[in-house]
């Protein structure tokens, strides 16, 4: 089978859905310019050649406007795929996403729907505090929004197709170091085999990346890779790790997570975002409540510290949770 990068897989998902449904279109900055980059991370490269500049719609630098225009277009039966170039810019669009996209259906008592996708690149990648944040956690707190975090090309394609067809606003988070853009040393290899045949991945179904019996680790996006390599090392110590990638945070596959924790009796949550108030807090709260009698030790969160993201690689590397942090946490949870 073909191995695609995440960027390629996303592009394919968009292309397929745009061919299938003429109401799907892309809107964002620098996404369709001739001789340009296909967005900040090449995802829409080449699409304007096929679909033209109205359906791959380049915008002014106006994030609030982009989100609001996407809401309006969605209300009238289009299926916009909007994007911000870096997740950090989403704060400019929060009003339209939280006050309009997430609420218009409710305010209209179900007469309206807002089928839009907001693509949001996240993660630290050596660019300093304003181009590095992981912002998923803000959105799990907004009733009316769905939250998706694919960790590899296969998931990225299947989930994006589902997102595009979903009748609700979907916040779709992509990690910058997973795109697989050429030539970036820091990149993690998130390529995967992607079938030629069409497939969709339903929301709310976690992926068990690895079966294990001693401890359950829940991680998303780039952290999945960190956890996988930590698990390899822990195996040598005789610790058997089960790794769950929830893939969608809203809706959340609570069953799979609970089943695992009830089996392993130990849980560790890993995300690249700051600790306090991150989605790991909700996960921890939920597991602590629902698997209370099964936990043999307090669960641990392995997260970035509560600071902005520093520029210097030596600091940023320390800031991002690493293999060693995961290993340490697992050992602690296991009472080591």
């Amino acid at each position, binding site marked *: 089978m073909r191995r695609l990068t995440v960027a390629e897989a996303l592009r394919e998902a968009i292309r397929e859905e745009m061919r299938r449904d003429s109401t799907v279109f892309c809107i964002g900055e620098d996404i369709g310019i001739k001789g340009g980059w296909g967005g900040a991370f090449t995802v829409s490269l080449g699409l304007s050649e096929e679909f033209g500049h109205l359906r791959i719609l380049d915008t002014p630098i106006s994030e609030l406007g982009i989100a*609001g225009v996407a809401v309006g277009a969605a209300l009238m039966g289009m299926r916009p795929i909007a994007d911000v170039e870096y997740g950090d810019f989403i704060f400019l669009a929060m009003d*339209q996403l939280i006050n309009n996209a997430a609420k218009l259906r409710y305010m209209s008592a179900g007469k309206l729907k807002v089928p839009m996708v907001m693509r949001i690149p996240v993660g630290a990648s050596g660019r300093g505090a304003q181009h590095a944040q992981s912002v998923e956690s803000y959105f799990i707190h907004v009733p009316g929004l769905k939250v998706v975090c694919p960790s590899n090309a296969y998931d990225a394609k299947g989930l994006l197709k589902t997102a595009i067809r979903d009748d609700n606003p979907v916040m779709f988070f992509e990690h910058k170091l997973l795109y697989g853009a050429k030539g970036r040393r820091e990149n993690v290899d998130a390529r995967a085999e992607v079938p030629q045949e069409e497939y969709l991945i339903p929301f709310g179904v976690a992926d068990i990346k690895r079966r294990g019996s001693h401890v359950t680790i829940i991680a998303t996006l780039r952290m999945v890779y960190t956890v996988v390599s930590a698990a390899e090392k822990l195996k040598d110590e005789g610790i058997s790790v089960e790794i769950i990638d929830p893939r969608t945070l809203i809706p959340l596959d609570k069953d799979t997570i609970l089943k695992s924790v009830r089996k392993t009796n130990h849980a560790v949550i890993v995300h690249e975002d700051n600790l306090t108030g991150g989605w790991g807090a909700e996960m921890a709260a939920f597991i602590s409540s629902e698997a209370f009698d099964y936990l043999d030790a307090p669960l641990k969160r392995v997260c970035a510290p509560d600071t902005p993201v520093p520029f210097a690689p030596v600091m940023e590397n320390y800031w991002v949770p690493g293999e060693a942090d995961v290993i340490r946490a697992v050992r602690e949870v296991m009472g080591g």
Partner: protein
Amino acid sequence: MGIPGDKLIKMYRKMILIRNFEDRVHRLFLSGEMPGTIHLYQGQEAVAVGVCANLRKEDVITSTHRPHGHAIAKGVPVKSIMAELFAKTTGCCKGKGGSMHMGDIEVGMVPAIAIVGGGIPVATGMALAFKMKRLDRVAVSFFGDGASNEGAFHEAINMGSIWDLPLIYVCENNLYGASTHVSKVMKLKDIAERASSYGIPGIVVDGNDVISVYKAAKEAIERARKGEGPTLIECKTYRRGGHSRSDPGQYRDKKEEGIWLAKDPISRMHKNLIKMGILTEEKGKGIENEVKARIDEAIEFAQKSPSPKPEDVFKDVFA
């Protein structure tokens, strides 16, 4: 100028309907019979009516925290507006919206967006959808003078302009954003001048003259339908009452108030129509009575309608 007499009467009736509707609503609020808060549109009726008289059912509008007039003008049934104010299941938002989110997409009105300026990008996006789908529909965004200082105004109108969207931006300049006089928050005589930042036409009209509003909107909407892009129409107007429910409006200059209240759009239209021979005092009374009966009916309907169940809270979050 060629607006047929029956069209003029229709507009007049709508204005009377809005005025009387809000008179009653105001009293119901003050007496504690209605929940929530309200922002009355009284004094600005000519704007909503003059603009919407040019719209078809499938055309769409966005509105604001002050939406009753837009809702009535766009054709949301008065009963369902009233029921919504009473927080009943028969309301246009089944009690989930309330005064500030009045609207019904079935007649082309998005639930009003009460975040000042927040509807402008949404209207722009709706117009974009029409262009993409090659539909002969237009979008209208109503907003206030205050809203024109929001970033949303700037970003959205710029986008509407560069894509030549079928769209009209209607700024109702009633001289105040809440308690703040427009002269304190912008150094401009006419907000319409801001259109030049986007290379689109900016037009000033007497917002208390429904005929002027009608004509300006007509022209702009024709442009829009022809694919020539949006227009910013500034309607100079004034609200008769306070900003919201219980506001006495003491920040307003008495002289200014006097001048503007004398320009009331309804008595002006009344006088005009009589002068034009289209209306008689008697016919006018007839309209008023008819309108009042409709409102009575709406109140009765609303009061008799069932309240939502608490558990309805959980409905309509996701599609």
